[in-house]
């Protein structure tokens, strides 16, 4: 609604909105603050001003071998996403531009596989991983994460591709473009923004996955989610170090997330809300 409101009303709304926003953001903010404290400060009671000590970050990186799970997270998230894109781009392309009577059913069925609770297949997947030596390997987890997110990837790409008007592809065909030209000069440049958003959202989902990563790894392939989960036991880290590890685990994805918030709605609702 494009309507002028009085300045006072606007200030009132602004204050209310900021209070709510800061309360919601507070746990993250407080974690970041605590990560910049020393251990003594961290348990000394409520205090929003840290001493800006970076020692916790140093300790986490040196003692707890932070970089290995971090590398694993990157490999799992990026690897599973790229793999999913390789499989999903042709499928979504075909369904969007060459639909058949069954396309809708296929899409709905793909969606239905996403409804299957992970725990329902925990037993067989666990046993398969044990017996095939895939347990605690990156390749095994990349495959699982890829399959888990494949329906979302196909759906997101499909909704983006559908927005590319078919007439433009026909125009290219009339203009003498071969299939290769059509894909190279017309479809790809127009699809890139959609593919990029899909990629971004899927990396976020894969990075934050915390069921299979915990079930199917121990040390070698454990990404940050499994690494952090292991600190649930009391002999784990102390407050400041835990905060530093947490901050490092969420920072990259938080920033990616801020960039992708619009696509998030569309991806997570399978295009039902845009």
């Amino acid at each position, binding site marked *: *609604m494009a*309507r002028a*409101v009085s300045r006072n*009303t*606007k200030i009132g*709304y*602004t204050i209310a*909105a*900021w209070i709510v*926003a800061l309360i*919601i*953001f507070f*746990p993250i903010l407080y*974690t970041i603050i*605590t990560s910049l404290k020393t251990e003594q400060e961290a*348990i000394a009671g409520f205090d929003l001003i840290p001493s800006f000590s970076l020692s916790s970050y140093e300790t986490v990186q040196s003692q707890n071998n932070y970089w290995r799970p971090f590398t694993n997270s990157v490999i799992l998230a990026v690897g599973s996403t790229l793999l999913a894109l390789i499989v*999903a781009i*042709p*499928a979504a*392309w*075909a369904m969007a*531009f060459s639909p058949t009577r069954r396309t809708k059913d296929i899409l*709905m*069925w*793909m969606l*239905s596989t996403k*409804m*299957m*609770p992970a*725990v*329902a*297949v925990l*037993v*067989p997947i*666990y046993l398969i991983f044990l017996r095939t030596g895939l347990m605690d390997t990156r390749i095994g987890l990349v495959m699982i994460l890829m*399959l888990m997110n*494949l329906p979302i990837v196909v759906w997101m790409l499909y909704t983006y591709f559908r927005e590319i008007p078919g007439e433009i*592809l026909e125009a290219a065909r009339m203009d003498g473009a071969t299939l290769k030209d059509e894909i190279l000069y017309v479809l790809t440049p127009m699809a890139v923004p959609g593919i990029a958003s899909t990629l971004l959202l899927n990396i*976020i989902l894969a*990075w*934050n996955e*915390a*069921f299979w990563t915990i079930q199917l790894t121990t040390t070698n392939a454990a990404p940050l*989610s*499994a690494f*952090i*989960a292991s*600190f*649930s036991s009391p002999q784990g880290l102390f*407050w400041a170090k*835990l905060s530093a590890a947490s901050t490092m685990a*969420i920072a990259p*994805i*938080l920033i990616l997330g801020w960039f992708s918030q619009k696509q*998030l*709605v569309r991806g*997570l*609702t*399978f295009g039902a*809300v845009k």
Partner: protein
Amino acid sequence: MATRQTASLARLMRAPAIILLLIWMLVPLGMTLYYSFLNYNLLNPANTSWAGWFNYQYFYSDPAFFESIWNTLVLVLGVLLITVCGGIGIAMLIDKPIFGQGLVRILVISPFFVMPPVAALIWKNMIMHPSYGVFADIAKFFGANPVDWFAQFPLLSIILIVAWQWLPFATLILLTSLQSLDGEQMEAAEMDGAPALSRFIYLTLPHMARAITVVILIQTIFLLGIYAEILVTTNGGPGFASTNLTYLIYRAARLNFDIGGAAAGGIIAVILANFVAIFLMRAVGKNLD
């Protein structure tokens, strides 16, 4: 563009995704179904035998099973109540003309990007810890006794953590829906003399109905599978007080090595999830045409 060459090419392009998902769906689920009828324990794999309906009967007679079903329902409904009501309120607030709207949006959306184990640990140690948490600091400031959240209110604590994680999702989707509300329709209602509350009940809410449905259904799918938050905070306890169905099955499979029992639980989880899925598919399917 439906020419013959493109049609057969399209079939080829669809095939890998369909085949992969078909395998991913059928093979493990079939195995789960098969295992659910076996006496199969990893500690004693030599003694594997056909169990018939025993695993299901065992689950059915186990008090922990009903407790976990109850906990699952309370967890799902509790989180839905908080996130949907909170989401509507926050979405309407952010939709108002405010200074720094973009930044407010970013702050509100942030918890969604925090991975579940981190979210749970932050709340466990920084916020709800009985001696060092912020809640304890607040209680001490007012001279009250700090609450030991995870010991006294384990399920409520988990509901709070999960609600914090999903509130941004609900807010964002409801906000998106709210922004597509027709301003002229609102003004017409104002001209017709409808007060603010009536406009909310008769225009805003019905307009958001579809988004609210989608929020409820999608969250339910994810909330049925809550796992890491429980693992990191209460481990399902005390007793089974914060064990949901997912966690119970995990316990059976990974801590008791009871493959048959866990598989039977998995089948029950599938049936539960299907109830929700049917409704979700209808809601989403309408959008396809």
